């Protein structure tokens, strides 16, 4: 159905600008969400991804439309990078019926059949078995797709992580596990919860090929994902990428961040994936004067449109509350 993506990134100006745009788009979207949260347009939990944008933007360069994607409750970036429309995501943040989950899921449960985006899972590690099953379907039905599953390092403490690595390797399933290691499971630092904090070593103990990637470097993430996905598509079974990253903002809007030093946050901010990538592009002469301003203007306009869309969207009629508890069409 889709040609497999190439094994190496093509670092053309156009491609690099696309990566930069992808990250800025997620950053500005979430900054807007904070404003809207303060205005009480968005409610419930809001888990910001700011600082980690290089991961989905880099990784998704290696996916095709035939692939399935599973993410966590911190998934605005994944949904946007996957191609779920910003209008539909913003309307979902509002809880409106035009949202990508009809408004029923909100921030943590973005779904989109058109882009094979399977949530938005708010139970830590709960999405991993789904990805294994999606990959199993691809394999049994002799299709070309793979399943990619994004999760935080907190998921590594759950039994499902271990069950799924074992099962997917045992059955040689086309699954890409992307561990976004931002060091903190809510407020618990990795070393305080894991006897072996090197996550890729755990994967290797299940014979799952695993590597560590600088999750603050979008090109490094893209290159690693392309390489690993080529192996998965070639029948090599599952693989794991441990992307080392950092969450610049609080866990959620209710987190006073008593568990980490401000100095540590500031230190990581020096490695901001957007600033760092833009500087590198500038140094190498790829980024021209006016490029960033043009991207910012384009993104601002898209966000403005998405807010207007969400504002003018509708509340699902209460009479439809129980619609779709059950599917009715024959399987």
């Amino acid at each position, binding site marked *: 159905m889709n040609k497999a993506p190439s094994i190496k990134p093509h670092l053309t100006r156009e491609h690099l600008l696309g990566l930069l745009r992808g990250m800025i788009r997620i950053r500005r979207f979430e900054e807007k969400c904070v404003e809207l949260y303060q205005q009480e347009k968005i409610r419930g939990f809001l888990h910001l991804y700011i600082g980690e944008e290089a991961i989905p933007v880099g990784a998704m360069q290696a996916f095709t439309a035939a692939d*399935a994607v599973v993410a966590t409750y911190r998934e605005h970036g994944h949904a946007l990078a996957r191609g779920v429309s910003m209008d539909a995501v913003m309307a979902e943040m509002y809880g409106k019926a035009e*949202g*990508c*989950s*009809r*408004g*029923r*899921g909100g921030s943590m*449960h973005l*779904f*989109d*059949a058109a882009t094979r985006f*399977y*949530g*938005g*899972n708010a*139970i830590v590690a*709960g999405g*991993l*078995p*789904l*990805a*294994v*099953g*999606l*990959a*199993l*379907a*691809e394999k*049994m*039905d002799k299709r070309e797709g793979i*399943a990619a599953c994004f999760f935080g390092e907190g998921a590594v403490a759950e*039994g*499902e992580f271990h*069950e*799924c690595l*074992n*099962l997917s390797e*045992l*059955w040689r399933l086309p699954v890409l596990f992307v561990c976004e290691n931002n060091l903190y499971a809510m407020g618990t630092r990795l070393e305080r919860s894991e006897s072996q904090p090197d996550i890729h070593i755990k994967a290797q103990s299940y014979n799952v090929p695993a590597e560590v990637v600088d999750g603050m470097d979008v090109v490094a993430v893209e290159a690693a994902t392309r390489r690993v996905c080529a192996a998965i598509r070639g029948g090599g079974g599952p693989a794991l990428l441990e992307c080392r990253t950092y969450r610049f903002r609080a866990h959620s809007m209710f987190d006073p961040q008593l568990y980490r030093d401000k100095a540590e946050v500031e230190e990581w901010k020096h490695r901001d994936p957007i600033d760092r990538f833009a500087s590198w592009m500038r140094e190498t002469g790829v980024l021209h004067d006016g490029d960033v301003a043009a991207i910012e203007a384009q993104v601002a306009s898209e966000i403005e449109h998405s807010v207007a869309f969400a504002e003018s969207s509708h509340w699902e009629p209460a009479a439809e509350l129980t*619609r*779709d*508890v*059950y*599917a*009715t*069409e*024959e*399987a």
Partner: protein
Amino acid sequence: MTEGTREITYRDAVREAIREALLTDPRVFLMGEDVGRYGGCYAVTKGLLDEFGSERIRDTPLSESAFVGAGIGAALGGMRPIVEIITVNFSLLALDQILNNAATIRHMSGGQFAVPLVIRMATGAGRQLAAQHSHSLEGWYAHIPGLKVVTPATLEDARFMLAAALTDPNPVLIFEHVMLYNRSGVLPPDAGPVNICSAIVRRAGQHVTLVTYGGTLLKTLDAAETLAKEGIEAEVIDLRVLRPLDAETVLTSVRKTRHAVIIDEGWRSGSLSAELSARIMEGAFWELDGPVGRVCSAEVPIPYPHHLEETALPQPAAIVTAAKATLGS
């Protein structure tokens, strides 16, 4: 195979159903612990590995959450998995996947995705397997919107409910009572297909309605025979489907008999039997001539010794007593 009337066990009926599903739909496959080489913990799937191969009869590691979740993912991906969990007691290790994924994804995604998954598991007591292998927790699952819960109690339902479950676009949990596997009987040539939406009257009567399902159906029919000898004609309803509940069939009977007893191998407190009693109050209060009775398992972890296990479970004598009590006789 269905030209004439024939003798068959419940176990064979379930196996035939699985075999038929595998033969008729290439999307169907079976996975679970020891379903292949071992032949199934209750020997239900014996021979299927040889016939269908290891791609479609998948032995899994002891990872209930992973393989149940993988069943959900495979269903989302277009397959029609049948997942076997050896007993309901072990399904608790996969409860998160069943509740938070299988049951929610349809609604939470705004109707974009369906989870056409079948999960089969054994339930119930009677084989002296002690507490961790003997519980009846199907009522818990019946609490959850988004799931369908069915309890084949007869050979015909054992043989044909699976096909209906696989046709259904929702996650369907099939509970097979452990004491039924060895039961044999006659399957008429015109048996099936069956639905998975309605209860059925298994014995007609006009004096009292006995509502039950699964492993207590035969005990309830025994009790009805005893009552008949004393001139009390009991109507026995087999719920067949615990979710969605077919309350109307129950209410229709209760409006006629004006008396009801619920027989459930689950515990009494916070239970399916409590739900049924409430439905009868809501729908037939003014037609009742006596309080709704209940015969449930004793509120203990099911014990190992035969005499204590039997004491803990609903028995025909207790059903007879409860029926007479509600009749005031």
